[in-house]
């Protein structure tokens, strides 16, 4: 029986590794990363299944540990809330309530709510609605995604046949739509008023963009269609800064070849009057370190701040200084693409080293 359990755990770990946003999840020192949407605070899940929270103006780093917290695949802070952090684990969903004013470094497991639903594990993707009222969770083995009312601990399953499981979820910024991707060549766009969905078959080849243009779609859908399409074909990860002016793309390297490490390419983007995508530069790590995950800071004042998790367990913050095109009518020339090493010396505020 023990063997069976162990085997079950291994297969679910493989599944998590496949669908996790973190590249090479299984041997990565960092399992997941999330910026708080409103404050300078982020959470990192580590290989030993603990989660640490770093704040910009405090040296206290609370460590979260829980019996059920295994194989953490995704983290997300609740919007419009100072304390709640959702954690997607192997068997359940944990909601930590970490008091921002408390100085305790080990919040007790009583601060965590455990949400679980039979047949709904491992959970690989979670998404809070932008108003913070709902949490959607998805598992690649469950065709239903769960819409949680977290405080009441009740869930509404939303089931659609086809595609087999749900692997990735993302809300539109205004909360009116939700993208749900499946392991197969299919994704759905849910509208969140009456919770009906549109099926989008993922088209292969060059006709994709033409066909997308034919459908009457909003910018959001176009954006996600692009991101999803890119992710499936060339790139493993894309991230857009909140102002929509920088697009970072993680190009996955070839593990066999020596000279083909993973690399992050950054593009300048502009959505009006026409959509433009201009190459901007590359972000490289220290020798031997490969990028595993990246995320833009949700509200960086002076431009955009890209946070990169490296394969050696470092987290670095790469600032892009520019004035918004929307304000000045043009891109300012004073932008700087700071390298990783320069970042370590210049910006101590955000940089934390985790080994």
């Amino acid at each position, binding site marked *: 029986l023990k063997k069976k359990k162990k085997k079950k755990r291994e297969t679910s770990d493989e599944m998590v590794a496949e669908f996790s946003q973190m590249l090479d999840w299984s041997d990565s020192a960092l399992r997941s990363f999330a910026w*708080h949407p*409103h*404050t300078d605070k982020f959470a990192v899940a580590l290989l030993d299944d603990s989660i640490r929270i770093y704040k910009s103006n405090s040296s206290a780093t609370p460590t979260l540990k829980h019996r059920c917290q295994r194989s953490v695949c995704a983290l997300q802070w609740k919007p*419009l*809330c*100072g*304390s709640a952090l959702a954690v997607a684990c192997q068997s359940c969903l944990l909601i930590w309530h970490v008091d*921002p*004013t408390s100085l305790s470094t080990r919040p007790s497991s009583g601060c965590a709510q455990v949400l679980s639903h039979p047949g709904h594990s491992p959970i690989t993707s979670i998404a809070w609605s932008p*108003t*913070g*009222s*709902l949490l959607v969770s998805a598992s690649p083995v469950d065709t239903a995604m769960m*819409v949680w*009312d*977290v*405080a*009441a*601990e*009740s869930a*509404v*399953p*939303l*089931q659609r046949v086809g595609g087999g499981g749900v692997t990735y979820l993302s809300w539109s910024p205004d909360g*009116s739509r939700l993208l749900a991707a499946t392991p197969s060549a299919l994704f759905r766009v849910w509208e*969140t*008023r*009456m*919770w*009906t969905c549109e099926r989008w078959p993922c088209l292969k080849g060059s006709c994709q963009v033409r066909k997308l243009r034919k459908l009457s779609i909003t910018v959001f859908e176009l954006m996600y269609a692009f991101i999803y399409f890119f992710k499936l074909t060339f790139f493993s990860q894309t991230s857009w800064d909140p102002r929509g002016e920088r697009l970072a793309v993680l190009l996955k390297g070839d593990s066999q070849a020596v000279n083909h490490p993973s690399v992050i390419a950054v593009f300048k983007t502009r959505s009006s009057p026409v959509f433009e995508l201009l190459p901007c530069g590359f972000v490289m790590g220290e020798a031997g370190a490969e990028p595993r995950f990246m995320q833009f800071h949700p509200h960086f004042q002076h431009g955009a701040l890209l946070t990169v998790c490296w394969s050696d367990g470092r987290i670095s913050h790469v600032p892009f200084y520019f004035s918004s095109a929307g304000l000045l009518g043009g891109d300012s020339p004073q932008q700087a693409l700071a390298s990783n090493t320069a970042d370590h010396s210049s910006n101590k505020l955000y940089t934390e080293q985790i080994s």
Partner: protein
Amino acid sequence: MFSLKQNSWFIRKVVIWRAVASIAWSVLLLPVTAAVFVLLSRFSLFHPIQWISDCTSLLAASSTVFSLVVLCGVVLITGFFNLEFYTLVPAIPCSRMALLGTVLHPRQCVHSLVYCTMGMLVMWCASVTIGGRYSTLGTPCRQSESGEVVTCLNEYHLFILLAGAFMGYSHSFLGVVQNMYYVSFQPIQQYKYPRFKGCLPMVVKCSVIQALYSARNFAAFYFFFGYAPKTWISSTLNLQIDSSIQPLDSLTGLLDFSLLYHLSISGTFLYLTWYLTVLLFRICVTEAYSFPVQSTFTEDAEQSLPKVLAEKNTLVMKFLALQDLALLSHHSLSRRLEVFSLSQPGGHAHNWNAISRECLSLLSELTQRLVAHQDAVASNGRVKSQSASSDTRSASSSSSVVSGTEDIAETPRLSVPLRTPGSVFKSSVGGANNALTAPFTPDVNSPFSSPAIRRLVGQQDRQSPCFGTEQSPHIMRRGPKLWSASTESQSSGSPPASPATVPSPPAASQKPSFLAQWLQNRREQVKSFLAKRVLIMYLFNKLPEASSQALFADSQAHIWALQGLSHLVAASFSEDQFGVVQTTLPNVLSCLVVLLEAVDRHFKLPHASSKPVRTICSMGDSTYKTLRFALRAALKTAIYKITTTFGEHLNAVNISTEHRKRLQQFLEFKD
């Protein structure tokens, strides 16, 4: 029961039709479930073709059609009961005694009787459909001595019919215990069909589990008591009992696999019929209804959102209106603009003023309720500690210490008005009328109320039967545990215990008269006797969390009000052209902050922040148990919504310094 005449337009025009639609759908679903039932009941593994052909011919038979007609009648009655008994605010009993009172209420007795009858009817239909040895009550049999053919009692048929009555009663009983008629609203909106489809697996699972439980319980019940109905029926209907067949109230008779299979299959069918009706009713009633923000014609004025929100009598309309408000504030730009618009002519912001006034009064009513509850609880603690010490000094017997402490524990605030840290609410407490606390006021004349309460009622009539839980942990630790629970029972055991026999401590210490002493001793004996009885303890023990749940029972309305208000206020930042919201912004903010303080303090009370145990699978909705957590989360989100939208502009809003400090915490995301 029939009170349609004085009902509002909403009940007449909307709720009734929704109920009718739900019943119609249940009737339409009946042939489907019946067909599945027929297929399962005639199942034979080795003759699949014969099985299918048998079933098709049976479905077309006249007896099946007749059964369907009877079942339609059952569904109609069930639907009628749903409409008559449904509630949006659950009744939460504070002790098992109160629960028992509800179960024995005449209205509930009628309900149980009707459900027993319906259970028997459905089971009769099921037994006719299954056929074979179950079909009739009387069977021809040969008497062993004379060899002549007489009509014997068919115990299998009787067994199935009694099982129906048993399941009917247990459904009715569990309906009370699990609040089956409580209708909760989903956190998301869905069309009726997807929602039904999503809930169907859960309902089927619930009915199977419930049927298996009931089958087990009924088998046990029949094993012990089956003899009585059997002999009664056989004697009244003059039926013989066939002695050649194994009787069913024996172990060997009950260990009949086919019998148990048919029992559980028909039980599942029975429960599924009822549960589907309940489910469809819930889905139809909770469907969102869109009220016009402004009425174009004067005769429709009572149907507009501001008017409907102010309505007090029709709860379902008020709830749906608040839900509509939350939805429109979130999803509909055009309707938001209507809310922010000015009246023509005059230029008054009637819509916004009426809507915000209603929401704010709803929220401040909750604040007052919470503060009143906290005051009652807090003052209990204070008075207890003072007089407990005086009791200890004057006590003559060791047990009277305990009784004194406990009497006080049950008493509400005597005369010392307690100044709790956040006593800024004192002014509002004065305004808290008794109607607020009415549901929590004990029945003074009931034999279960303690003499202490009777004595004090003259001074203070705000007291909750549930409040005893709140301060009890301390006492439980100090004194014998029994007392904190069974104080109420003391007078039930000794009815003549009048206020006069309760010795006031100083008097008792000065002049212990023999009679008083004797009475005191008797009372102590009766009390300790009763306290040792497990049953009485069990009945009068306070259910933990019950008072908290009761306070927040209708909080779904408050949650919508919070969502609606906060979204409207946040939207007004960019959409409100005339600045109508600006004038009420200080009121809204202070109302929210005051409510937050009251809620925070409530969660510091014992039991308030403990999570209820989750029920695995039952049709009863337990959403009300977690409403207080949902309210707290909604409240914080509402404040955050406003603070993040307005940001630094909040400094220009005219609010008190304390509130500004609190809001500053929200601006820094430190709450």
